[in-house]
């Protein structure tokens, strides 16, 4: 009996798991889209990323031109981690950069930087 119950339980869990897996691509897509949308909001927010102060970004107005326009990001950053590192702390690559060290100076949280990275990677 005990063994049987265990088996059933396992079966159920496996079924749940399979069910979940079946749903996964959809759920992940929705979560990704939400992150990207939020990343855009944080990037454009003057009190947060304020990336438009220095970068032209599609969909943003009154952009500055201190930094390069953020376009064709996948071509320029084949590795998304390199892009994230640039946004997290631009001084790693260029110690004198005017770009804000968003991560180390606590201007943005890790999760905000993740979301901005996802958004910027769509450009």
């Amino acid at each position, binding site marked *: 009996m005990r063994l049987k119950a265990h088996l059933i339980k396992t079966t159920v869990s496996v079924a749940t798991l399979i069910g979940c897996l079946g749903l996964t691509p959809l759920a992940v897509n929705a979560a990704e889209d939400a992150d990207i949308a939020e990343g855009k909001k944080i990037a454009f927010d003057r009190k947060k990323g304020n990336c438009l102060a220095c970068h032209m970004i599609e969909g943003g107005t009154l*952009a*500055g*031109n*201190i930094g390069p326009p953020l376009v064709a990001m996948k071509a320029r950053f084949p590795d998304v981690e390199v892009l994230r590192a640039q946004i997290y702390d631009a001084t790693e690559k260029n110690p004198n950069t*005017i770009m804000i*060290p968003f991560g180390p*100076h606590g201007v943005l949280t890790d999760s905000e930087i993740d979301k901005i990275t996802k958004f910027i990677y769509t450009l």
Partner: protein
Amino acid sequence: MKTIANVLTAACLVALPVAGQASPESDLNDFRDHFYKKFPDTPKDDFINGVYSIDPASREQWEAFEEFPSYEIYIDKGEELFNKKFANGKGFADCFPNYEKGIRQNYPYFDSGSGSIVTLEGAINKCLTDNGEKPYKWKKGNITYVSAYLASKSRGNKINIKIPNDPKAIDQYNRGKKHFYAKRGQLNMACADCHYHYAGAKIRADILSPALGHPTGFPVYRNKWAGASKKGDGMGSLHRRYGGCNKQVRAKPFKAQSDEYKALEYFHTYMSNGLEVNGPSQRK
């Protein structure tokens, strides 16, 4: 360490007048050259006009403003205050005997007696307190009216800041220079980032002005400050602007007329030597 190094350099300069590496004079030449190269279309004596010296688009609108300048009434108020006798019968003219010829171009200066920097605002308030009067507030109001009046009398005179060969003067100069080039605040930006390296670039919709010529037009009447004032008074001192620019990068501003800002003004104004005084002026 840096200060010691610079004092040593200064000491070396005395011994070897040929090696002019980090002297204020060579700094000044490099500073000017940077902007002359960056803005070849701007006549060299036009840097006194801030962002309007490099941006023809906004210059036209500004010139229209300058036809009927908003600071005019404050020059008049300054003149009135200047000519009002103190309770002891004396007046500002006793402290500033050369005011008719113009004195703005000589401030700030290094006072060897006290080893400190004397700004025009500092001298105005010292005149008041020496004569038993109450000093003015530092950043706006009466002090900017009197300094606007004195600046208006000095228009056309050339900025003439001296860095005497005194280690204490060199120290003040280097302190100001360090402030100008050092990254600060949560946003980690230096004055030099915005007004030296990226002068002429757009930060959002604002064009960054060159630091060359910055101090010549102060005090200024800013539309933004007028909007924030109940009386619509947009006058502000250079140190008021320093505080604003420090705050922009989320750095704690220093107090107006603190030693830090006086040193910054000393360096910043020395870098405009030879340019004409054109204060007060009108700004966005």
